[in-house]
Structure formats: C-alpha cells, structure tokens
C-alpha cells in the first residue's frame, strides 16, 4: 500500500466515523452533565434513563406507536394515491392547470396544522382527523414534485419516441414516468416526514390513543422521561418510514448519475 493510498483510506475511515462519533460525544456529554450536575429526572432525564424507560414500558409505547404509525401510513398512502393522479391531471390538462395550480399554491400558504382544531370539530375524536391532517400536509409536496418531475422532461425524448410511432400512452410509460420517478420519490420522502408531524399534531388536539396523546398524558403527570421516550419513538417512526421509501426507491428508481 502506497503512502498516498494509506492517507486516502485513513481519510475515508475518518469521514465514515465522523457522524457516529459526534453523536456519541453529545450523548455522553448529556449523560455526564445529568449525573455530575445532579439534574433531576423531572427536568432532564439522561439518555440511559430514557433508554431504560423505553425498555420497561415497551408494551405501552408499542401500542401507541401502532396507532400513530397507522395514521401516518394511512394519511400518506391517501396523499400518494390521490396526489400522483392529481399531478397527472395538472400536467395533461391546461385547463386543470390554469384552474387548480394557483389555488393549490395559494392553499400551501395556510399552515395545515392550524386546521387541526377545525378537523376535530368536523371529523370527531377518532382516526379520521389525524389521517386527514397527515393526508393534507403530505399531499402538496407530492403533487408539486410530481408535476415538476413531469414538466422537466427533455422534449427531445418525446420527439424520439414519437418518431418511432409511439402513442401518448407509450410515451408516458416508457419515457415520462421513468424520467419523473426520482422527483416523485423526492416528494414522497418529504411527504412521509410531514405526515408524521400531521398525525402527532392531530393527536395533540384531541385523541385517546397514539404517541402524541401519550406525550400529553406524560406532561400532565410530570413524567418527563416517558415524554422523552415518546419523542425518541416518534423520531424512530419517521426514520423507519423514510427508509422503507428509500428502499423502494433504490429498488425501482434509477438515479441519473448511477453507474456500476
């Protein structure tokens, strides 16, 4: 191994380790500060205490996680199922685009979470307002990314397949959709992260189950450790769903700069 190769290897290892090491340092500092400064668990529980709590209350957390997870997946799934066809309508129909696109962008300026109390009023205390909020909040990025993905296609590619006698249907399946997929998945990834926010906010407003509800309960009982445990699990839900999408993307979507 030449000195140059060795330097490169060292550098690569260092870069790979940078983030985990930094995270470990922060956690250790947190742990150390809590023990040495004698901060009460009610103010700031240590990472170790939170971890222990997740372990001891696993069944409770799991039951609420299931609820939140289903709300997120339901809301996001509806947004994806409705958003992509909606984007297609905007792309293919000039009238739909002229009528709806400005409206859509205008509605974007409403902070969707501000609608949560109203949704409770209209849809009650059950699943519906949470799923609907998760849907609303993830719908827009999915629509917009899909439209942008479809519109940014190189027009010459359309001429290419037309010169081969392709119908619009073939053009869509062979060219437009595959070329737009990276952008569509970009919208999905933004959407799933937002859907988690939507579901939890919905639970804050009115709920009898779910991680957001569990947090409210923990707050009222001054159980800060359980509160933190719920935060950790909510993050875990978001990250897990994000990686599920990323796995789908890696399987079905070909990135432009890909090379083997």
């Amino acid at each position, binding site marked *: 191994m030449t000195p140059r190769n060795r330097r490169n290897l060292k550098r690569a290892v260092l870069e790979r380790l940078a983030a985990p090491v930094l995270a470990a340092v922060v956690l250790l500092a947190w742990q150390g500060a809590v023990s040495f400064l004698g901060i009460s668990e009610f103010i700031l529980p240590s990472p170790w205490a939170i971890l222990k709590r997740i372990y001891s209350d696993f069944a409770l957390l799991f039951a609420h996680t299931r609820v939140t997870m289903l709300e997120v997946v339901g809301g996001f799934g509806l947004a994806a199922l409705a958003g992509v066809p909606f984007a297609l309508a905007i792309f293919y129909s000039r009238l739909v685009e002229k009528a709806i696109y400005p409206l859509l962008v205008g509605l974007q300026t409403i902070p969707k979470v501000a609608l949560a109390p109203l949704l409770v009023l209209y849809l009650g205390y059950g699943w519906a307002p949470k799923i609907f909020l998760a849907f609303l909040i993830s719908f827009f990025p999915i629509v917009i990314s899909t439209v942008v993905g479809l519109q940014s296609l*190189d027009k*010459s*590619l359309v*001429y*290419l*397949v*037309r*010169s*081969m*006698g*392709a119908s619009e249907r*073939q053009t869509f399946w*062979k*060219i437009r959709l*595959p*070329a737009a997929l990276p952008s569509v998945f970009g919208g999905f990834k933004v959407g799933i992260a937002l859907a988690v926010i939507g579901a939890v906010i919905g639970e804050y407003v009115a709920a009898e189950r779910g991680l957001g509800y569990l947090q409210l309960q923990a707050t009222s009982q001054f159980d800060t450790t359980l509160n933190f445990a719920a935060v950790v699990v909510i993050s875990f839900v978001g990250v897990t769903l994000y990686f599920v999408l990323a796995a789908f993307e890696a399987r079905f979507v*070909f990135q*432009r*700069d*890909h*090379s*083997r």
Partner: protein
Amino acid sequence: MSSHGVALRIEGVTKIYETREGDPLPALDPTDFEVAPGEFVAVVGPSGCGKSTLLSLVAALFPVSAGRILIDGEEVKRPHPKVGVVFQTDLLLYWRTVLDNLLLPAEIKGWERRKYAARAEALLEQVGLAGFGQKYPSELSGGMRQRVALARALIQEPGLLLMDEPFGALDALTREQMIMDLQAMWLEIRNTVIFITHDIAEAVFLADRVLVMSPRPGRIDLDLRIDLPRPRRWHIHAEPAFLEHTHRIRAEFERRGVLRER
C-alpha cells in the same frame, strides 16, 4: 442486414411557426426536391436556416404548413414506420441498459423482443460495441453513446435514415472515426439517408448529393452532385476534385453572406 431505400419527394413544403405573440415566423420557404432510393443526401446550411425543421417535417414530428411530403409515393401524415431518426444528442434513456435502449423501437412497435435481441447484439458488434449490451449509458463515452443511438435507429431497418447533425457534439477525432464508420456501414446497407450538417467537408465526404440551404427562412440554393468514387478514403480531403466541391459550396455561402473574408 438488408433494407430497401425508399424514395422521398418534397413538394412545395413550407413551415411557418408562431411566435409567443402569435406572429408568423417563417422557418422554411417553399422547398422542392427529390431523393432517389438508396441515395445519401447531405443538407448544409447556417444555423437557424431551417434544415433541422425540414428533417422534423419528414419525420412527421410537426405538420407541414403547406405542401406535401411523399415517401414511396405515399403522403406522410404521421411518423412513417420505415423512417429512423438520429438526433443531435444521443437521447439514450439513462435508466435502461444499452441493449434495452436498442430494443426501445421494437417495444414501441410491438415487435417480439426475443426476435430482435439477436439483431441488437449483431448491430452492437457492427458499431464496434460488442459486449457493451449490459452497460448503462453513463458508463459510455460521447462517441460510444452516439454509436448506440445510430444502432437504435438502424434496428428499425429504416428505408430512410434521417440524421440531424449526429456528430456535432463530438470531439474532432471521434467525429472523424464516426464519419468513416458511417460510410462503411452505409455502403453495406445502401438505404436512403438525409444527413443534416453545417460542416461542408463532412457533407462532401459522405454524400452523393449536397443540398445547400440559404439563411432563414431556408430555401435550397444549390443542388450539387458529388461523383467521387466510393469507398472514399480520408485523404480524399486533399484531392482537387474534393476541394472543387467544398470551394463551390463555400462560394455559395459567401455569395449569401453567410461566410465573409476579412
């Protein structure tokens, strides 16, 4: 590989685009010419003269504003199955392997893929890319990619091959090789070719006939027969007969003010 060249006839074809403001923008003045089956015709002209427009009209990508385009006596209304196009850029689909890119026309035309896979392999070999079928376009150089684009057009066994400045984006050496390879391949196929370029020497080297177009709105100013024997070797570029043709075309451009001595 055999494919019969088709006859092409352009009758008073014009193209008028519309600007954003709705004003008419003439791109092609009434144009008439005929191409015999198996003839290699190069069209040279300054940029924006409508030579690419002419090509897209023959490919039926846009409707003509007036006139008729006839392939083997039949008026062209929609993309003709016997026409293959090679564009300025390779337009390979980056999410498909080289082989799947080659088979795109077959898929679109609903031909049986299995039957054409063997032909695709043979074509790859012919364009010097044997064994590259499973590679992705991003792994190929610009010249290799344009070779794949050429093979993709040839898999359709086009009786008429339309080439729109296909080597314009390549470096000089790659381009020289491509020009020679194209000649060699065409001598085997002998189909009808319309080759658009702005390079006078490229046109004279490759073509049986060179059509010289005027600046926009384009019109054919000169129809020059190139009767140099084939196969043409590269050193023909220095021969008097070759230079006579290039000078003749250059003089036409000077007359039209496209080229000026200073």
